[in-house]
């Protein structure tokens, strides 16, 4: 049993190579252990004090944004560039838990925890994010959609640390949004969720659409078959809703039946398309879109 505090990425990589598990905010790892989901790993390395790992770099790469793995949900929610140009991500971060959870919980922890109900995943998929994984042996970049291999599982090797999430520059005339179905307005977990990224043509019709879904399958579901989908926002929203309900493979549990999840994920996808299209058209809809439009009003 050991607990070490890493000051640098190199410290952390060495500890992980020796078999320790990284712990960032601990809001999944520790809470999960208390709930009996999985025992706390015997060896832990705290990565939350690594200098620079909580930075948001605007203009990285080809004009995109890079988030250090330790960037908190609170920081994402309140960052003007993320809220303005990567709204689906900010919408998701702003919904996480409570103010306390959002200050402590990190983007790295959220994506590496790989819950199918996670609130940043669908947004990251439609925004085309990549994660940067690093080990003592080197660094690689993985498209976010390829990271998750099942509930709570990733393709990362045990000795790999997620050091950053890279977001490409958004297309001109595009906008994005993430919505989730929730039974209460704080401390909630997505019953189902959907993110959309919309690019509008000059005439206001949809030129391109990407949609991803949360809590309706073993991992975040990227809706397929939308590559050739164009048309009015309404028509696209209808087609997306139908595709989302069809491609979802939800389970029944105490929170909802599979029938209800299949139906409501279509509703969420439709609303995500409409909200994203409004943002693409230049309208400001405050983060998170769930609260601004009201779950009942965003039709």
């Amino acid at each position, binding site marked *: 049993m050991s607990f070490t505090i890493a000051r640098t990425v190199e410290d952390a990589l060495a500890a992980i190579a020796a078999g320790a598990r990284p712990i960032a905010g601990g809001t999944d790892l520790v809470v999960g252990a208390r709930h009996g989901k999985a025992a706390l790993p015997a060896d832990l390395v705290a990565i939350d004090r690594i200098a620079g790992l909580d930075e948001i770099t605007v203009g990285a790469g080809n004009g995109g944004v890079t988030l250090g793995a330790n960037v908190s949900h609170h920081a994402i929610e309140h960052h003007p560039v993320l809220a303005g140009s990567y709204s689906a991500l900010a919408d998701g971060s702003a919904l996480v838990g409570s103010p306390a959870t959002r200050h402590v919980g990190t983007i790295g922890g959220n994506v590496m925890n790989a819950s199918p109900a996670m609130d940043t995943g669908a947004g990251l998929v439609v925004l085309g994010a990549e994660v940067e994984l690093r080990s003592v042996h080197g660094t690689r970049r993985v498209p976010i959609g390829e990271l998750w291999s099942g509930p709570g599982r990733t393709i990362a090797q045990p000795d790999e640390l997620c050091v950053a999430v890279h977001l490409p520059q958004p297309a001109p005339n595009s906008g994005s949004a993430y919505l989730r179905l929730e039974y209460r307005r704080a401390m909630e977990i997505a019953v189902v969720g959907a993110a959309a990224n919309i690019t509008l043509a000059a005439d206001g019709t949809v030129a391109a659409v990407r949609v991803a879904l949360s809590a309706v399958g073993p991992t975040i579901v990227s809706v397929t078959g939308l590559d050739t989908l164009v048309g009015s926002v309404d028509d696209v929203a209808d087609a997306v809703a139908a595709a989302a309900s069809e491609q979802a493979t939800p389970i029944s549990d105490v929170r909802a039946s599979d029938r209800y999840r299949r139906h409501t994920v279509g509703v969420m996808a439709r609303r995500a398309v409409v909200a994203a299209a409004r943002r693409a058209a230049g309208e400001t809809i405050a983060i998170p879109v769930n609260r601004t439009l009201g779950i009942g*009003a965003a039709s």
Partner: protein
Amino acid sequence: MTISTPAPNPARFIRADGPDKVTGSGRYTADLTLTGMLAAKFKYAGIAHGRITRLDTTAAKAIPGVFAVLTQADVPNVRFGGFVQDRTLFADGVVRFEAEIVAAVAAVDAATAQRAVDAIVVEYEPLPVVNDPEAALTADAPLVHTDWASYGASGALVRERNDASFSSIAKGDVDRGMAEAAVVVRSRYDADGCHAAPIEPRAIVAQWEGDKVTIWTTTQVPYDARAGVCETLELPANRVRIIVPHLGGGFGGKCGFHFEAHIAALAKAARRPVRLLFSRREEFLAPDKRRESICYDFETGVSSDGRIVARRVTMVLDNGAYTADAGFFSQLGAMHALGPYRIPNLLAEAHLAYTNHQPSGSVRAPTAPQTCWALESHTDEVARAIGMDPVAFRQLNAVDTGAEGPSGQTYGEIGVQECIERAARMAGYGQQLPGDEAIGVAIGWWPSFAVPSGAYVKIDGDGSAQIITGAQECGTGSVMTLPQLAADELGMSAADFQLVYQDTSVAPYDMGATGSQTLFNNGRAVIAAAAQIAEQLRALAADHLEADPADIVLANGQAFVAGTPDRAVPIATLAGIAAGGELLIGHGSGMPPGPPPISGSTCVGDAGVAAWVAPQFSCHAVRVKLDRDTGVARIMHVAAAHDSGTIINPLGAEGQVQGGVLMGIGQALTEGTSYDNEAHQRNAGLLDYKLQTCADAPPMDIHFVQINTPNAGPHGAKGLAEAPNVATAAAIANAIAQLVGAPVRQLPMTAERVWDALQEVAQNTIGGAA
């Protein structure tokens, strides 16, 4: 009959224990540590129904660091229960619900205790699981208690097999009434059980000194807890001391006698202090207090002019595996199913069915919120069936001053009609609303409980005062109101009084933080105790000022001669004089008012809750917005009007209503226990049992209808802790029913259930059109 005067000093004051609690300086039971203290853990059944064929604690006892392992064989063979003696401390050969305690361990630390628990070997012969209260009452249902007939029980209870308490209220001729009605409406409703869910999980510390035991515990009812320890461990009351540090909420869940005796027995066997700390999961599964599920069949007949002429209702309440304090729930539930209405012909029948579920018990206004939800949903159906506005229908049929209620009680002055009018007005009832919004209205009622209670008051030589009371504070703030009452009586200020409370060896008896009774009864006791001191002070002042004691007035911290305020002496000076002679000590109890008469009704299984002292009334009007695509309902505004008599502290009273309403919203929309086929709770935790959060709290308008209540508590106060929890879910249901086009017949009205109801309406509409 006494008509009381209004409170002399209605004051908005912040409760005295508030700063301690919000700054973290207050100490709770779990904060206690005693030298040599051990940790306790329970071995639970894990299955809902089974006969123990093997129970072996040898391996557990052999683990180093384990000091005691107890089973039923190690404690007195006592069967206990306030209504039915159907329970033992540990399983007595048969386990009847999943969290029945089979054994208890005390060990050096919690991890060792848990290892010992895991090392206890128990084997079972499975018995058929009784998972459905209605099915439990059929002739061929397996018995939860095969020996039910031999159990001791309160003589008032009518019991038969799995029916632990049958109760009926009948008046007039219900068959004839139905036959003569212009319209008869029948409805079925099902309410799931739910939980009190206080923020503080249970904690108990027990320590023996010689043959005396002190138990620090998270109870709402210290004297009841003491009685349970004395009964099960066969001890006299004066050898058991119960102390309650700050209590982190209760909502009824911490009423009754729970695990104090287990921990006292462990401490005795281990010869060390022992502490029990519950996890959140245990808090959900193990206590014999959760809100009972109930199913209802209603039938109401109305005349063509909209008057209720007959009502018939049958209801089945889930008792769970043991009766706990639910013995009176069948009669209380029947009263709520009849409601505060004028009904000439009626029959209500209620059954309390044993099942293999967690036992039910008093959670804030037991039986009331779910029964009000069912009755008031049904009432809207009736109003609609005869084309009447639901508010007008209630105004026509609800009881009023001088009217006779369903059990044949004729009411003195009551404020139900004013509550309806006020709530409707505050909600803007009748206004034009968007198509996805509607306002639902419901009325509720709740008794005051008149019971014995005691308190001492003393003033020391420096003029500072103490109230030493048996009353218990569970978060309502009612104990915090007592200084105001003593201050009014003695012409002092509330800040002059410190409270000493929650210790059974220090103060006289009180029933505890239960039944909204603290202010009603302990207020009476404190006033009586203060009055004794007031008399002493008047005599001292008369001596000092050379006046007649009858002319002495106590006000503003002084005693003065009526009419000549400058002939005065500070009360502190009088206290100094008394300190050298006869001390200023008052003790009080006062006679509780007796039950009002009822006539013309027949009550079978009469538990004494058909006649209500100082009944409280309320009307809630709630504006709801419905997302028809998902079934998610949002509460936009709540208007709550309450007749709880005189309000002593408006700030505290408003807090009670806000909390009750928010709890009601949870019961309406998200809080319900779900059982699997083997009678295991599926959502025993805060992740899947969804309480409302501050972010969900809607704006509220609150009004108190204050009238001269006969036979009420101090200054005309009734109670207020439970009443605000009664009508909210019902009002929400009536708004949702308007938006859906049909009632949602299950509680909680989860988004998915609302969506299912919407689908059904859509299908019927299509079907009807085809």
